[in-house]
C-alpha cells in the first residue's frame, strides 16, 4: 500500500472519529431538557425560524453585519472555502476525472477561503477585543481549518500534496468535536432557538402588522 492510500485511510478514520464525536455532542444536547415556551405567540414561530436560517443571515439584515460587512463576508467566504475543501476531500480519489473548469473554480473558491481563514488569525491577533476574547483553541482551530482549506486548494489546483492533505484531514477530523469547530453542530440549535423565540414574540420574520403605516 502506498503512502497516499495509507494516509487516505487515516483521513477516513479521523473523519469517522470526528463524526462520532459530533454525534455524541448531539446526543448530549438532546438529553438536556427542552424549555417549552408556554406564552401565547404574538408572531408566527415558523416564520421566525425560516427567517433565522435565510434572510436573517443576509449581511444587510443586522446592524452588526452592516457595520462590519467586510469581516462578515470574510467569515462567509472562509466557511464556503471549508465546505469546498470538504468536497475536495470527498472527491479526492477521482480528482483527475473532474472537468478542468470545475478544478479551477473549486480551486479558486477553496484558495480564497484559505486566504480569508489565515486572515482571521491575523485579525484575532491585531484587534484588542479579539485578542482578549480568543483562547489558544481559537487560534489552533482556525489555523488547522485554514491549513486544511489551503491544502485542499493546492491539491485541487496542482494535483500535488494529497498525502499531506490526508494527514491534515485526519488531524482536523479528530480535533473537531474537542474544539470550537464543534459550533458547526450548535449553530443549528442556537439559530433555531433564536428564530423561534423572536418569531414567537413577533420581532423577526413577520409581515407588517395592523398598526403599520
Amino acid at each position, binding site marked *: 500500500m502506498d503512502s497516499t492510500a495509507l494516509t487516505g485511510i487515516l483521513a477516513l478514520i479521523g473523519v469517522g472519529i470526528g463524526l462520532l464525536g459530533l454525534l455524541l455532542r448531539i446526543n448530549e444536547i438532546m438529553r438536556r431538557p427542552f424549555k417549552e415556551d408556554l406564552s401565547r405567540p404574538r408572531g408566527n414561530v415558523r416564520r421566525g425560524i425560516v427567517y433565522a436560517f435565510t434572510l436573517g443571515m443576509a449581511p444587510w439584515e443586522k446592524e452588526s453585519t452592516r457595520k462590519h460587512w467586510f469581516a462578515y463576508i470574510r467569515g462567509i467566504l472562509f466557511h464556503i472555502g471549508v465546505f469546498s475543501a470538504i468536497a475536495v476531500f470527498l472527491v479526492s480519489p477521482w480528482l483527475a476525472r473532474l472537468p478542468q473548469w470545475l478544478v479551477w473554480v473549486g480551486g479558486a473558491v477553496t484558495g480564497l477561503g484559505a486566504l480569508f481563514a489565515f486572515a482571521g488569525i491575523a485579525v484575532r491577533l491585531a484587534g484588542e477585543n479579539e485578542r482578549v476574547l480568543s483562547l489558544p483553541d481559537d487560534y489552533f482551530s482556525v489555523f488547522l481549518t485554514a491549513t486544511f482549506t489551503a491544502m485542499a486548494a493546492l491539491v485541487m489546483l496542482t494535483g500535488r500534496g494529497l498525502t499531506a492533505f490526508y494527514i491534515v484531514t485526519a488531524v482536523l477530523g479528530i480535533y473537531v468535536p474537542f474544539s470550537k469547530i464543534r459550533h458547526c453542530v450548535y449553530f443549528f440549535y442556537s439559530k433555531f432557538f433564536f428564530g423561534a423565540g423572536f418569531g414567537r414574540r413577533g420581532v*423577526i420574520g413577520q409581515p407588517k402588522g395592523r398598526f403599520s403605516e
Partner: protein
Amino acid sequence: MDERFSDERYILTDEKAALALDVLRKRLNRQLEASLEVCVRCGICADTCHYYVANPKPEYVPAYRAEQLRKVYRGLFDPVAKIAPGWAGAAPLDQDMIEKLILSAFGSCTMCGRCVINCPMGVDTRHIIRTARAMLTAIDMTPEGLKATVNVHLQDGNNMGVSAEDYVETVEWMEEELQAELDDTSVKIPMDKKNARVMYTFNPREVKYFPYLISAAAKIFDAAGEDWTLSSENWDATNYGLFSGDDDASRIIASNLEAAANHLGVDTLVMAECGHGYRSQRWEGENWVGHRYPFNIISFTELQAQYIQEARFKLDPSVNDKRVTYHDPCNQARNGGIVEEPRYILRHVVQDFVDMVPHGAENYCCSGGGGMLSMTEFAKERIAAGKVKADQIQATGAEIVATSCHNCLDQLDEIKRHYKLKVKIQNLSELVAAAIIWEKTES
C-alpha cells in the same frame, strides 16, 4: 476584591460555590447549552452594546461577559477543559471569578438583547447573563438594592412597600382630581369590579411619585368606554425576579398578579407602561408558573393603539405641538415586538413625531434596564453608558421624549440632567390623555 463587594456575604465559601454550580447544572437546558457552546468569539457583538459604545473596553464586549460563565461551564462539562483548562478556556468558580461574574452579569449588562439580535450565531446572551445572576442570587450575592426590591415585593405585595391604605387613597385622590379637571363627576376609577373586561395594573412608582399617570390612564379608559377595573390587591406590574434571576421569586410575583386577575374574573390583564413588567407577565410569567393563564395579557401601549384605531375617542394632536421622539423600551420592542403601536399612537396624538436612529428592535437601551436603577453600586457606569441614548435623543432635535416604561423614564430623566438635554420625558399615556377631546359632560 472590588470594594463595592467587600461585605462578608460576597465571600465565596465551598458551600456557596457548590450551590452556585448546582444552579448552573439544574438550569442547563438545550437553549442554554446551545448559547454557551456556539460562540466563536468573533467580537462582532462589541459595538452593539451601549456599555461598549460609551466606553470601548474589552470587558464591555457582550461575548466577554458571557465568556465568564462559559469558563465555569467548560470547567464542569468540557472533557478537554478538564485536562487543559487554559487551552479550552475553563476556570474554576473562585473568588476572582465571582467578582467577574458580578461585574459582568449585574454591573454592566441590562439584558436588553441588542447583542442577541445582532449575533450572527444566535447566541442568547440574555439567557447566559440571567443564569449567572441566578447563580449569584442563590448564594446571596445579589447587589443590595435589587435584593431589597425583590424582598419588599414578596413581603408587601409591591416593590415599594406601598400600603393598601395609601394605594386606595391615592386612587381616590386621582379620581377626584380627574373629575375636577374634566368637570365631570361621572368619571370613575373602578376598584375590584368583578367580571370587568380588563384589569389595569400599576408600577408602584406611579402610585408613589407619578400619581397623575393614574388619572391619565383613567381618562383614556373612560373616554374609550372601557369596562375596566383596578385590583385593590396584587396590583403591581413589576417583577424584579426577572432581573435577579430568581425563578422562585418570579413565579410567586407572577402568580400574585394571575390570582388578582382570576379573582376579578377579567378577560384581559393590561400591563402598565412598564417594560420589564410587561415582559415578565406576558412572555415569561406562564413559563414561571408552569401553565397558561386563562386570560389575555396586553400592554397599555397596545391597548391605546387599539382604541385609536377603533376611533374610540377623538384626538386633537395640536395640544402636543412640540417635536416628540420615542424611546423603545427594550422589553417591549426588542423583547416583545411592540414597535408599530407606539408610533401609531404618536402619529395620532402629536403634531411632530420623529424617530431616533436606530429605533424599534434595534434601539439602544437607555441603560436603566436589567434592574440597573436599583443597583446604585453601578450608577457611574450606568450614567456613562447612557451617553449613547443622550446622543440619540439630541440628534432628533426633539423637545419631548416619550416612552412606555418607568425604568426608562427614570433613567432618561437622569441622563437628561447629566448630559444637559433640553427635553421633557413623558409617558405615552400622558400625551394620549392630553390629546383626548373630552366630550362627556355631567348630566
